[in-house]
């Protein structure tokens, strides 16, 4: 599973720079953001597949970034990584749509597995949307089918041909 895109968001620059180097050695494509505003700009410029997001940051905190990203870019899978977290924070993050909630310092191999699982989750959800759209289209409800597909990107190429030809 090479080259899925990960955005690392944390105000500790040395932490995410080091983590980025290690993830790149494991064939993950990484970009960095040092605060919430930078993170939102990065998502708008080049939507990542997965975002690794710190909770406590100067300015806009992680919960606010999570809320905004899940609203505008629901396909982005968000993994929270924090040195702070309480059970209450985890509950709130999951309610806002976080895929996972991890504590620093984190075992890298566990993190990589979590990031890959998050990406697989993204693909599975898009596949489900695609299947749902196809069902509506089969029933003649093209409008609904199109609405479902317009809500999501289509990494499986189901928009390419009438019979869902792969790329």
């Amino acid at each position: 599973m090479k080259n899925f895109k990960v955005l690392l968001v944390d105000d500790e620059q040395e932490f995410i720079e080091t983590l980025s180097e290690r993830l790149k050695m494991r064939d993950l494509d990484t970009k960095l953001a040092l605060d919430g505003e930078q993170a939102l700009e990065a998502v708008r410029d080049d939507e990542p597949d997965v975002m690794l997001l710190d909770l406590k940051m100067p300015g806009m905190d992680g919960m606010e970034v999570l809320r905004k990203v899940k609203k505008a870019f629901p396909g982005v899978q968000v993994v929270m990584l924090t040195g702070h977290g309480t059970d209450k924070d985890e509950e709130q993050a999951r309610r806002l749509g976080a895929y996972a909630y991890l504590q620093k310092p984190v075992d890298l191999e566990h993190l990589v597995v979590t990031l890959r699982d998050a990406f697989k989750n993204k693909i599975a959800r898009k596949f489900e949307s695609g299947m749902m759209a196809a069902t509506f289209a089969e029933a003649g409800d093209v409008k609904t089918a199109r609405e479902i597909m317009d809500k999501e990107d289509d990494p499986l190429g189901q928009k390419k041909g009438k019979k869902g030809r792969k790329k």
Partner: protein
Amino acid sequence: MEPREVALIGRLIAGTTHEIKNILAIIKESSGLLQDILRLKKGNAVPKAEQIEKVTTRIQAQVARGNDQLAALNWLAHSMSDRSSSVGVNELSSGIFNLMQRFARLKQVELEVQPTDADATVEADVVRLLFVLVTCIEYYLDREPPKGRVVLRPRGSGEEAILGIAAGSAAGHQNAEKPEVGGGPLPPELADLEPLLGPLGGRLAFAEKGGNAELHLILPLRRDESR
């Protein structure tokens, strides 16, 4: 201890332990990167010395940072176990500076201490002093815009010790040893602290010189230091 003093101690400890967790995370990733460089190198390629040097320098810097944070926690613990004691204004300012690093960073404001060459010692309830000073500094941190600056200036002045706090443009100007006290009334958030200072013989006041206001926490010197 008053409930709000206990709450403040809790916040200071939480902020410092969070910083330590971040430091450990950086050290963990850096040491992991060294392992990766050695294990994941292609064929017989020799790892670059500069790359190793960069990572080991990073680890050393984080250990130094961690040491400062632990020194701050240790100072706080000793202050709590020996509340009525003497403390130098430089030591007090340095302790507060280390404990409040995270607070300032989250506000995106630079916190700075300008220690005095002539240290002055006060005899007081250190935890109470800590509470008053931290509350005053937070008052400024909350009002400074991002990239602003708050400066702590401890010094002795005659029979008194002064812990001066300045922000914004006033942070760039050093007030004279004997500033003109009487720069206006205290806002309610700070006036609230005055009853705590009474038993310590201390007071809060604004000092103004050349249009730059500095908040002063004024305390009597320890008796054997009075001139």
